[in-house]
């Protein structure tokens, strides 16, 4: 659906407006807490994430190990903090990568009539692939590294952004100020950057939040399957994969990382919903 964007520069109080909505405020506070915990992991984690303690293996949650220990006696809470760094930074990188690719494709399709059909067909074709499956195939082809996971998921999610940007660009392209800029001889790249891109920022921001949430789920899925980031690096997905083998004896190993994913994704969705309601009021009552 084409969204007529509200320019961001006219929304100086976006943060305070977001905070005035209880659900969005709750989401934002949780997100900030998780981000701070992830950034401060080396200082607040009670143990090193790789510290083995065979004597303490499969230790249930207690005061000395808040979330218990895993099969190698490693502290689950400490690992979760470090896993948050990987999971969040990979998801954020996916948002940046998919935004760059999606914006370029969307602007091309929306602004240049001749490019619309080929780019839109390419986007349609990309969206025909189920996200995890395409990501698995790309990671299999490129190799299982964090960078390749970012590239693969970025390619998977870029078409979604391209569609949103195209839809908004189609509307903005016909607005008088763009026509006026053209008539004044402003070069096309300047029109695109200064007049079009600025005004499609809102839908990009909203969509970016949802891509962030999806990327966390997808990365966890890839890591869980063992086809994503190396199992040696703690991520929430790899921790669940380890915990799966000890579900009967030590359910906490997979319970806490799973809960961390749910809380983070839920918080992102609350913030995304709030942003959409504020920046795209026509959708406010809807999904």
């Amino acid at each position, binding site marked *: 659906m084409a969204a007529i964007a509200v320019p961001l520069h006219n929304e100086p109080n976006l943060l305070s407006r977001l905070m005035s909505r209880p659900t969005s405020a709750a989401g934002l506070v949780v997100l900030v807490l998780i981000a701070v915990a992830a950034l401060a992991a080396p200082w607040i984690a009670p143990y090193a994430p790789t510290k083995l303690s065979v004597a303490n293996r499969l230790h249930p949650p207690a005061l000395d190990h808040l979330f218990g220990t895993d099969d190698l006696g490693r502290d689950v809470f400490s690992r979760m903090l470090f896993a948050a760094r990987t999971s969040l930074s990979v998801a954020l990188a996916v948002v940046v990568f998919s935004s760059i690719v999606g914006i370029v494709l969307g602007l091309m399709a929306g602004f240049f009539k001749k490019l619309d059909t080929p780019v839109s067909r390419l986007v349609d074709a990309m969206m025909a692939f189920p996200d995890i*499956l395409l990501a698995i195939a790309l990671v299999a082809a490129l190799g299982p590294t964090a960078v390749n996971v970012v590239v693969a998921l970025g390619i998977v999610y870029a078409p979604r952004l391209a569609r949103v940007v195209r839809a908004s660009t189609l509307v903005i392209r016909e607005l008088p100020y763009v026509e006026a800029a053209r008539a004044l001889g402003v070069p096309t790249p300047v029109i695109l950057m200064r007049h079009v891109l600025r005004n499609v920022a809102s839908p990009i921001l909203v969509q970016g939040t949802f891509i962030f949430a999806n990327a966390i*789920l997808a990365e966890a*899925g890839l890591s869980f399957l063992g*086809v994503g980031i190396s199992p040696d690096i703690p991520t929430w997905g790899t921790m669940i994969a380890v915990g799966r083998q000890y579900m*009967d004896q030590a359910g906490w190993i*997979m319970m806490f990382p799973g809960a961390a994913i749910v809380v983070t994704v839920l918080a992102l969705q609350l913030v995304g919903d709030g942003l959409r309601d504020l920046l795209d009021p026509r959708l406010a009552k809807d999904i």
Partner: protein
Amino acid sequence: MLRSILNRLIGMIAVMALVVTIVFVIVRVTPGDPAAVMLGPDATAADVAALRTRLGLDQSMPVQFGRYVVDLLQGDLGQSIFLNEPVTTALAQRAEPTFFLTLFSLLIATVIALPVGILSAYRRGSVFDQAATTLAMFAASVPSFWLGLLFIQFFAVKLGWFDTSGYGGPGASFLDRLNHLVLPALALGLVSSALITRFTRASMLDVLNDDYVRTARSKGMSEWRVVLKHAFKNALIPILTVIGLTAALLISGAVVTETVFGLPGVGSLVVSAVLRRDYPVIQGALLVIAGLYVLVNFAIDMLYLAIDPRVRY
């Protein structure tokens, strides 16, 4: 009508052609020699050379693409390197669990989402609406594989109601197979119901205040008749779209869920193919699933034409 069908058909063929090209390219972006990557570090140079010839990788790119397309048109997806059987056979043998898992998950998701979404919109702002909206958002935040693990732990291990994994033996009855599908289908269906619920609610909200709904009410029709016959029918097009999209998402979810529940479906086949670098299988599965998605979308477009005569392509 005929023109619309033809337009969509041409669009579908164009998208399929691009899908085929993308799948062809994906395997070729492998850094280094794909044959060497597939066979691993222990392979001899002769083995690698033989595989290169077998897969046609020693030909030029246009020749490879031409051969690939000709084979595809003949229904040949290539030969699995590790299973030593045609990819079509490998996929066909594993299609049943994936098909039923997707079907049952979609059924569960739809059966939950439609009434909840309709009621939620009808009682907008009520406690039910708020609870349903919150639950839908929560469900959309849960990784299906994690929910599956929780289900295994609770329903299979603790309560012993269902089998923990597998799809029954070779001669298992349909009921036995169904028993193996309940938990994975529930895990996938519950998570997927979130999207359909939210879209159903949104679509119903769009139509519930329309003039024809008010007219139907003023004629003294019962509320249920107004909601189901007049409002829901008109809200159906976006709902159908999202159900179609959910089917595709379910295939994606099935890849992970099958692995959790040890179901011998296409998803597990793909995961094991990735771990063994069996590219022809990955390529074939991608193509078949993306092709199915394009066909589902085409079918939904055709349904639009049947439901709403105003729709034109």
